[in-house]
């Protein structure tokens, strides 16, 4: 049992905490934004100041939880702080606006397609997905949007969109954001997100560009932030997953996926992994 607690801080773990305050995993530098939304410095100059501005005496990120600490507000329940409420409201409005835009696009595309079709009447593969009808469940759309946001909130994504403009994208090679309006099963959607994020890792910044002292999302912050549907995201703090690693993590995560929101077992398990990686 290796819970990290505030009290039990020896020299060894102090070292790790300094390490941790700059990012709990080797790949935290890929995160564009810390869990509190602060943008990571790309240059190091003010990184320390920003880090210290948020420092508690134990230099741990404030959303890191242990059983002894009060921990963050559960994301399963509605967030009661105004900052979060307004963020949620904004996301809801964005999703509705996206829905309207998407509907208009579909209608326009439908019209064009009907004109082009001959009397053969067979549906292209694209057709059948659209004609199943659009996903309109707000809760589902919000969850999917959150998952997409996690993927887009990365340096990899930033670098990707700068490097490859949309019209230059080649299917299969270039990752494409999953379409949240299409009807998919939960597993299918989560799998698409997973594969998309794996593909995005090809644009991760080189490991030499790690920064000290900047605000970071730690692996454990991710856990607090995620709905259970986003649990799958956790595995992507590890670089270049080999196939076997990928499948073993998959099996693990998918069993967790069906649990209710209540994360202690998940947190414990996931807390252990980066420690082991760091100590290796």
């Amino acid at each position, binding site marked *: 049992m290796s819970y990290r607690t505030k009290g039990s801080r020896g020299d060894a773990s102090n070292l790790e905490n300094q390490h941790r305050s700059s990012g709990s995993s080797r790949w935290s530098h890929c995160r564009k934004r810390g869990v509190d939304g*602060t943008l990571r410095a790309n240059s190091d100059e003010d990184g320390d100041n920003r880090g210290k501005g948020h420092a508690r005496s134990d230099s741990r990120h404030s959303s890191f939880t242990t059983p002894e600490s009060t921990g963050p507000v559960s994301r399963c329940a509605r967030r009661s702080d105004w900052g979060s409420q307004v963020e949620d409201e*904004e996301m809801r409005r964005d999703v509705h606006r996206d829905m309207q835009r998407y509907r208009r696009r579909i209608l326009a595309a439908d019209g064009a397609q009907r004109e082009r079709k001959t009397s053969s009447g067979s549906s292209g593969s694209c057709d059948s997905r659209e004609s199943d009808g659009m996903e309109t469940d707000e809760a589902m759309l919000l969850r999917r949007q959150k998952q997409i946001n996690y993927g887009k909130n990365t340096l990899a994504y930033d670098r990707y969109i700068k490097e490859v403009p949309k019209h230059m994208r080649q299917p299969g090679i270039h990752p494409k954001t999953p379409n949240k309006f299409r009807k998919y099963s939960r597993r299918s959607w989560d799998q698409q997100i997973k594969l998309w994020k794996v593909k995005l890792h090809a644009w991760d910044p080189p490991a030499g560009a790690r920064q000290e002292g900047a605000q970071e999302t730690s692996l454990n912050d991710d856990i607090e932030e995620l709905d259970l549907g986003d649990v799958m995201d956790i595995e992507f703090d590890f670089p270049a997953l080999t196939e076997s690693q990928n499948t073993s993590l998959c099996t693990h995560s998918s069993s967790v996926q069906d649990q209710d929101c209540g994360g202690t077992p998940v947190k414990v398990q996931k807390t252990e992994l980066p420690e082991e990686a760091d100590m290796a």
Partner: protein
Amino acid sequence: MENSSDDYRIQSFDPDSQILLKTALKDPSSVNLEVVSNIIVDQSLKDAAFCKESGRICYTIVQAEANQNGGNVFRKHLLNRLQQEFNPREETRTRSLQEWVCFVTFICNIFDYLKVNNMPMVALVHPVYDCLMRLAQPDALMNEEEVDCLVLQLHRIGEQLEKANSQRMDELFFLLRDGFLLQDGLASMARLLLLEILEFRAGGWVLSNTAHKYYYSEIAD
């Protein structure tokens, strides 16, 4: 848009804070936005003039941050700090009427300026109403500063508030009407202010010409 920092009335801040604010307006990601939000809130609670316009500087920083990196760190800290000040408002009122009035002015100003997709922030609607309802209580109506604050806010954001929740606006105006008609010991200025706001709302948040003349022109006697 080149706005001189004077537009934001930051002269009342100490020199270091002024520099911090000016930087925040131009390059938000380079400063600690939590600190920035705290100094703005602190000043707004002290400075009766600043709190009437502080919404604007907040708006500009929010926009600057959104444009620079799509973030909303400043807004989040600002709102959460506002919430922290809102919860103990009754104690604040007891301790310092001036601070209470500044707080109400400030939160209404934020409601006015900080919009989400051009719509007022839903999260603030009830808190703002709670504040205004408090100002409409009999004990508050006895204080000219509180009545003054109440009518000023209703002039500025009454229409938006009513659109967001008309039922609570009705409730608020029941209190105002009762206060005007029934409350003993109300100062004549307070009475006048209440009458004006009653007419203002009755006219659809606009004062008719005759009403404007009645309330606002100098009568040569």
